[in-house]
């Protein structure tokens, strides 16, 4: 049995699943920061 497709699929999942979660978290954080900064401009300074 050729195992390479199984290995390739496992690596693809091992890269894509964490990458998708990381991108989604990053986008959500940026969106929340933008919205909060629009309402309370001093919020960004306070968080640093």
């Amino acid at each position: 049995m050729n195992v390479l497709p199984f290995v390739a699929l496992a690596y693809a999942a091992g890269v894509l699943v964490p990458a998708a979660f990381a991108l989604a978290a990053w986008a959500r954080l940026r969106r929340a920061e933008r919205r909060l900064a629009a309402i309370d401009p001093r919020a960004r300074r306070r968080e640093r």
Partner: protein
Amino acid sequence: MVESPRHGFKSQRPWPKLSAVEPAIAPPATAPSVRGGRKVHLFANPGRFLRFSGRLLPWLAAGGIVLSAVGLFWGAFIAPPDWQQGEAARIMYVHVPSAWVALWGYCALAAASAASLVWRHPLADLAAAEIGPVGAAAAGLCLASGSLWGKPMWGAWWVWDARLTSMLVLFFLYLGHIALVRAFDEPARGHRAGAILALIGIVDLPIIHFSVVWWNTLHQGNSLGLFSAPTIYISMLWPLLITALGYSLGFAAIVLARLRAAILERRLASLLTARAVDGGKSGQGAAIPIAGMGAGMGAG
């Protein structure tokens, strides 16, 4: 200008003070009676947590990306094939780190749940709610990669082996926690129910770990132990440990980013509510332009 004692920043009317609108994520006023609780509360302050996590997040993310990339490349192209399983053993470099992350992620979920039940701190509730989906993804990745490894080695995508079944239970515990937290109209009840489930489910962790010792399983035994020499060759051990460390840092970075976003979203909702109430009281309305959204909010 009014000095906010909790956050140490200047607040000016008519902007609502965060101390006034943030009770939903503020620590309880009473001093904790449990030993060590004061330190926990220091880190549980949302403002302090945001500053601390803001500095930590880039390092965690960079470490997670670099170490995962190095470990996966090493495992895929440099590490030798297994003498018995051949190239299929390379799936180990995805399968084992995701399993470890799912396990210690559940430990973090249980710790946050315990903190929530003992100190009733909403930041612990938020942490548990944000750990759940990421932990479920890690457990799902472990099961999927294990299935991809099992098919060429065992001739089956799935067997009801003790290790596989207990890992599936962990996956369902994560899913149950996600569903339970969102199942109630009152968020506090959902968080409390989820915390109880998370603490009950911790009994699954030793079952997963010792399943290959307690029962005759198709799944291979543990190759690494705290008190025993590894039974895996060193040239395979290094990429495995590097990938596991990279996945762990990446998991922590994702959870931290989600938790920061959740705190900011809650703060945003509190600000909007407080300003709507203030606007309603003064009879001016509270039309709040939100830059980049092209939307406003009327007090009605």
